[in-house]
């Protein structure tokens, strides 16, 4: 008997979509579709066994998967190194890793210690070095200070003298005229330019003001995107494309740069993803980032645990922290909140509000000494010894 064709195999596997989750179907396709001489009967036998094994691996109802997930992520935390820095992608950039990074992710920090972006480019920018460099210059933030050799204040003449660095301005594609233009816009004195020397003449200013102006000029943005201090270009050998790595992250602004591939851009700043791309992307970002941290440390944690954490952090559409300012602080139960942190504040406020604790959670029931509504406690099985007897008496009559 001849074996099934590839198309037939795939068809049979996907016959009933409800039978297996997608991951199993994909796996089966990968492993069976190239099989020659596979008979229909054996394929069905395989599917039956797989289904049997799948059904046996389902979770038990009532299982306290929350606690299991928390322990599965918390326990390896003790084995992680505290060493903070490591190289990401390119040797020049440092990113936070290990336990501090994991805490940062779960804290849903607004300002992570080392924001970092990976920017992939569209054609033709991705393959041509010059074009890629163009994008790099558009992204990297250049201030006057970062392209000049020296900025001096001459108090005798009430002038600020800026000498631009020749190499740096050509490297970043900035002309002295651009600098003059930006400085003129400040409307603080007259700006004159002589090759790479720029002088700001502001006679009618006080000494205090001129020093303030000096500070302001140093940080004056000439080109690039706010928050991105450095951009490093590197060739990804696998896909043969130029990729930009940035120190600092600013997703919305980078997305608006032409040449940037919006489908492949990455950032490790989760709050920023929440604000630009929405909650679904945030959930995925939490999963990816947390998995990456654990993997880098060589710790084996099932993805389902991480997914659960990501899901509860993003459950209500906002990014919620694991802790007092997030999930734990928004719990319904007064007792649960009080037994976590800031005990007295919660008790006093709920008394004023006249709150009612419905005692539906775990901590509350532990506190009052009742069975917790989890695991074997989810089942209400009531046997009333008197009940049977009463019925029996009625039947007798």
């Amino acid at each position, binding site marked *: 008997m001849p074996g099934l064709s590839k198309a037939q195999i795939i068809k049979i596997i996907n016959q009933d979509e409800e039978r297996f*989750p997608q991951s199993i179907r994909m796996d089966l396709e990968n492993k069976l579709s190239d099989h020659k001489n596979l008979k229909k009967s054996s394929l069905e036998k395989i599917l039956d066994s*797989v289904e049997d094994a799948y059904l046996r691996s389902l979770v038990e109802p009532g299982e306290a998967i929350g606690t299991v997930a928390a322990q599965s992520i918390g326990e390896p935390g*003790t084995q992680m190194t505290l060493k903070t820095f490591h190289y990401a992608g390119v040797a020049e950039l440092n990113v936070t890793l290990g336990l501090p990074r994991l805490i940062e992710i779960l804290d849903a920090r607004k300002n992570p210690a080392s924001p970092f972006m990976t920017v992939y480019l569209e054609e033709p920018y991705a393959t041509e070095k010059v074009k890629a460099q163009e994008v790099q210059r558009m992204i990297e933030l250049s201030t006057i200070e970062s392209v000049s050799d020296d900025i001096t204040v001459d108090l005798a003449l009430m002038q600020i003298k800026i000498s631009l660095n020749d190499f740096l301005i050509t490297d970043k594609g900035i002309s002295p005229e651009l600098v003059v233009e930006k400085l003129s816009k400040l409307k603080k004195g007259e700006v004159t330019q002589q090759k790479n020397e720029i002088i700001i003449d502001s006679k009618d200013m006080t000494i205090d003001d001129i020093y303030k102006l000096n500070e302001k000029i140093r940080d004056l943005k000439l080109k690039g995107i706010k928050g991105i201090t450095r951009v490093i270009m590197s060739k990804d050998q696998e896909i043969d494309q130029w990729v930009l790595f940035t120190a600092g992250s600013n997703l919305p602004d980078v997305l608006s740069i032409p040449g940037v591939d919006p489908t492949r851009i990455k950032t490790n700043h989760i709050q920023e993803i929440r604000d630009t791309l929405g909650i679904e992307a945030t959930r995925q970002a939490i999963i990816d980032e947390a998995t990456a941290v654990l993997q880098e440390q060589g710790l084996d944690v099932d993805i389902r645990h991480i997914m659960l954490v990501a899901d509860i952090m993003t459950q209500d559409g906002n990014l919620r922290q694991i802790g007092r300012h997030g999930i734990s602080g928004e719990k319904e139960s007064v007792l649960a909140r009080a037994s976590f942190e800031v005990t007295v504040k919660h008790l*006093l406020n709920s008394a004023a*509000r006249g709150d009612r604790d419905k005692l539906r959670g775990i901590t509350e029931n532990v506190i*009052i000494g009742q069975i917790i509504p989890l695991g074997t406690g989810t089942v209400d099985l009531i046997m009333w010894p008197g009940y049977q007897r009463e019925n029996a008496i009625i039947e007798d009559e």
Partner: protein
Amino acid sequence: MWTPELKKISQIQFGILSPDEIRKMAVTKIITADTYNEDGTPIEGGLIDRRLGTIEPGQRCRTCGNQVGDCPGHFGMIELARPVVHVGYAKSIIYKLLRSSCRACSRILLDSLQIKRYQHRFDKANKEDDLKTVAELIKDVVKEARKKSECPHCGQPQYKIKYEKPTSFYEETPEGSVRITPSEIQKRFEGIPTNDLALLGIDAEHSRPEWMILTVLPVPPVSVRASITLESGIRSEDDLTHKLVDIIRINQRLRENIEAGAPQLIVEDLWELLQYHVTTFMDNEVAGIPPARHRSGRALRTLTQRLRGKEGRFRGNLSGKRVDFSARTVVSPDPNISINEVGVPEQIAKILTVPERVTEWNIEEMKELVMNGPDTEIDEKTGVSKTGSNYIIRPDGKRIDLRFVGDLNTTAEMIDQGFIVERHLRDGDMVLFNRQPSLHRMSIMAHEVRVMPYKTFRLHLCVCTPYNADFDGDEMNLHVPQSEEARAETRVLMRVQEQILSPRYGGPIIGALHDYVSAAFLLTRKKTLITKEDVWQLLLAGNYEEELPPPAISHPKELWTGKQVFGLLLPPDVSVTSRSRTCKKHDICKLELCENDSYVYIRSGQLLSGVIDRRAIGADESESVLHVVVKDHGSDRAREFLDSLTQMLLEFLSHEGFSLGYSNVNMPDEGKKRIKAIIAENEKAAADIIGAYHRGELEPLPGKSLEETLEMRIMSVLAKARDSAGSIANDYMGISNSAVVMASTGAKGTQLNIAQMAACVGQQSIRGERILRGYRKRSLPHFQKNDIGPIARGFVRANYRVGLSPTEFFFHAQGGREGLVDTAVRTSTSGYLQRRLVNALQDLHVNYDIIVRTTEGDVVQLKYGEDGVDPMKSYHGRPVDIDAIIEEVLSSEEN
């Protein structure tokens, strides 16, 4: 008695006690600051008034007539001469209310249109139980009300209110800043209508704002503030009592002064003092005032301090409690018990008890247990004491202590059905065993008791991994479940064999370790051939009782291979294909012909090729032989497999012999010379880099400073020095070397450890940098200033075999210290992370429809983990081991 209603408390209402309620629940007014009379009896109307409850055994409460354990205690009260502010509400609510209500008519400072609009929004949010929106609305209302400079209801001008920590309020009137007295606040609050309060998030039914100003202070019962009698007979009162004494004294003085018509200033001072004492009575850590202190100078622990923190009422006494029926002692290993057993010292077994109900089927047995009594004699057969019993409980609930029973035999005869005998722990009882920190659920597992002599808990070495225990003085806890239900759950859910698979990654966490792994390797490698006598000896230890297979070599002598012996312990139909740890991952696998014997091929329970090491049977190894055994044959069979395997391996290893010594890390002179040369070579390379740096020829790496570049280059050269020295050492050490056996099988140690012992310890570092701190511009006074050469900056040229030079030793200690500090810091941060995670996630569970919900009913995931698979039951994260199924089906097809 057990009743069918499982839920006794369905909800808890929070609120503030009104003065009326406080007066009603008080059994007496407390008027004197003294506690006892000269004769030692409590003063009537004093702080230890007999009516407040009793704390002395034998005495009856003058209010309820109960004795110590049954009297719940009763409140008293102190009528304050002048009202005072409750600290807890000062900033959060009183301040808010003062600013958003009218100073004349007490209405909320919103016009009727605003009121209507907000009311509507509140109703909507409340209906949806949306706590977050409610909180935001309250903020909005306060903000809106504060803007008004004139009351929209009575037209009175409103002034700015200033709050001063911790309990004072001032109103900035045109005439100047005027203090608002608590009495004034009270008067204003009394007029706020219920509906207006609702807009500020206050439920007037349960908490009127004027009740936040105290006019009468409840005095907690004596059982809340129990005094202790020292050995010397001196009574020492509780901190709360001390504080109450202060309050009563000042209160009395204030009242006397008011009645005597003392000047305003004096009255106000005393009033302020009363406020201070009441404030510190409730919270002694308020910002802005000094904490009240004990005579000894220690800050008093008052109400807030009692509730707060790790040892506070909530976390220390309500969420976690001290329990009876538990024991704790040092643990030590016992390889001869099963992994699901625990050795319990006799002395402990005689104290811990299990209540057993007398029925017609066990009455004879129970009688004997009672006859044996609490202090049993030694059983000749077992060598440990017989099981006895400590108490019997009669059907009427009366407890009889068998220690004080004259004749045990007559007591035993008295026993009948319905009695409960609290018998000693005995072999086979299910107990919970635990080691802190309990980081995952495998930290508490159920074991079967084995009563043993001596004073330590004994445990099988394989369960060290889940508990993270060793035997350098670790102590562990043991708990005895007391109800039938608890025992059943314990037995079904918590037994050791049910925990072999970790839910963290879907693989075994319990498995062979250390010497078991070395032994498995030595047993199953190709050269191991065993005589018939020895085979039987091993199989006896491994509990094997079947026939012996034909020998692998029959002439001149019958010999069996180690692989054969190993296979005999496997369940007969196990099939596994995997690679051992020694696998070099060549592009083309030679399968059975692998020179390292790394291709592990098990069919029908026979180890056909490959050597068994950590990857096959080790703890913490997924997709291993052990994993397949657990998944295909169940936890009980896996337990048997582990038990017999470990015992057999132990037997084998003690015959084979295995030790590590100086000779294992020693090398021929030629090797030593080569190592010396390679270190010198790399040191020279480092010197060249430093030279280039000094000459200014060093090119910085992009994005790095010159110094950083220099450090990086030196570090990498020196790392190379150690690595190449290590690999030279490796060349001289074969698999006959014990250290190599342990490192390559995964039993203990790494290549690096061997390299450090035999070749070169290498660079020591602090915070990822070479050692540079200590003295000015040098690490130690042994070196020149500004010397940045390898030796001056913590490169250890020596190895552990030859020993370190004094400076090297010091650098090594510095590096080692960093490691210790790191662990100390890490445990606390990761512990806190764990606590937060558990607290955030603990309410989640899977429902019958595989939907993940919180206990409040909010859906978190529509299908757990997107496929509904329990990670513990998965095959290392994948729902099903498809490869194995395909192979099984197809191979059965062929036949």
